[in-house]
């Protein structure tokens, strides 16, 4: 049952990621990206990471995608005109991607230690929000505050970048 769900959602995720790359209309690509993020959240649920799955839906499928669609609307992007395809660029890109996939398969398939079943948890219904929060505020308190400063810097930077003219 879990294997079936894993395959359904990971195939959905990979197919919609292919849609992001190959659709010509940016709006179709963005919609495909939403589907890919939601399918990835479902894959996180099969790994018992409920908190990360919820954050994935809220931040990626919610906030980030609204930002993308807003910018597409703002720039009034149409379907791309067909340009002369650079054969060398496609060949080079395809070569790099194909090389990456074959290297990955070679490494993963040569390690028998990776073909292990999921070990059973000691508490099957883990309260993982509590665990992640405890870890975040106890062991990763300084990085957490640094992240807060980073978000502030990003906000100020965006406001500054979107001013009409810089002085």
């Amino acid at each position: 049952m879990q294997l079936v769900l894993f395959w359904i959602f990971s195939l959905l995720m990979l197919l919609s990621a292919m849609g992001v790359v190959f659709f010509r209309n940016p709006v179709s690509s963005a919609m495909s990206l939403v589907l890919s993020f939601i399918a990835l959240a479902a894959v996180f649920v099969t790994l018992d990471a409920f908190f990360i799955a919820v954050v994935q839906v809220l931040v990626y499928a919610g906030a980030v995608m609204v930002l993308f669609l807003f910018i597409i609307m703002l720039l009034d992007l149409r379907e791309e005109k067909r340009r002369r395809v650079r054969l060398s660029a496609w060949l080079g890109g395809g070569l790099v991607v194909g090389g990456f996939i074959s290297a990955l398969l070679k490494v993963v398939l040569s390690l028998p230690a990776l073909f292990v079943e999921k070990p059973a948890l000691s508490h099957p219904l883990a309260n993982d929000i509590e665990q992640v929060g405890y870890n975040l505020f106890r062991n990763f308190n300084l990085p957490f505050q640094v992240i807060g400063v980073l978000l502030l810097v990003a906000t100020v930077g965006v406001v500054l970048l979107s001013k009409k003219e810089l002085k």
Partner: protein
Amino acid sequence: MPTLAHYLIVSGLLFALGMAGVLLRRNLLIIFMGLELMLNAANLSLVAFSRFNLGPDGMPNYNAQVFVFFIITVAAAEVAVGLAIIVALYRAKQTTHVEDLNTLKF
């Protein structure tokens, strides 16, 4: 039951698709979407490792999930700044096509 290798291969394929988007497409927004896909692939492999390597108490290693939380935060900040740069660029050049942006080209 899916094994760790299943998750790693799916995550690697997702990373490859994001890389294909960055390398093959010429629209800045689509390049950005490819970057998001690559970050998500990294998150997937981190969560998979956390679930398959249980700690001494028999629970997943939650350090990895905290790390994923940080990656998601940094990605959100990165998207905001990157899209602001794209808007500023569009205002200056009226294009988001990378081949039209060749001022620095030697």
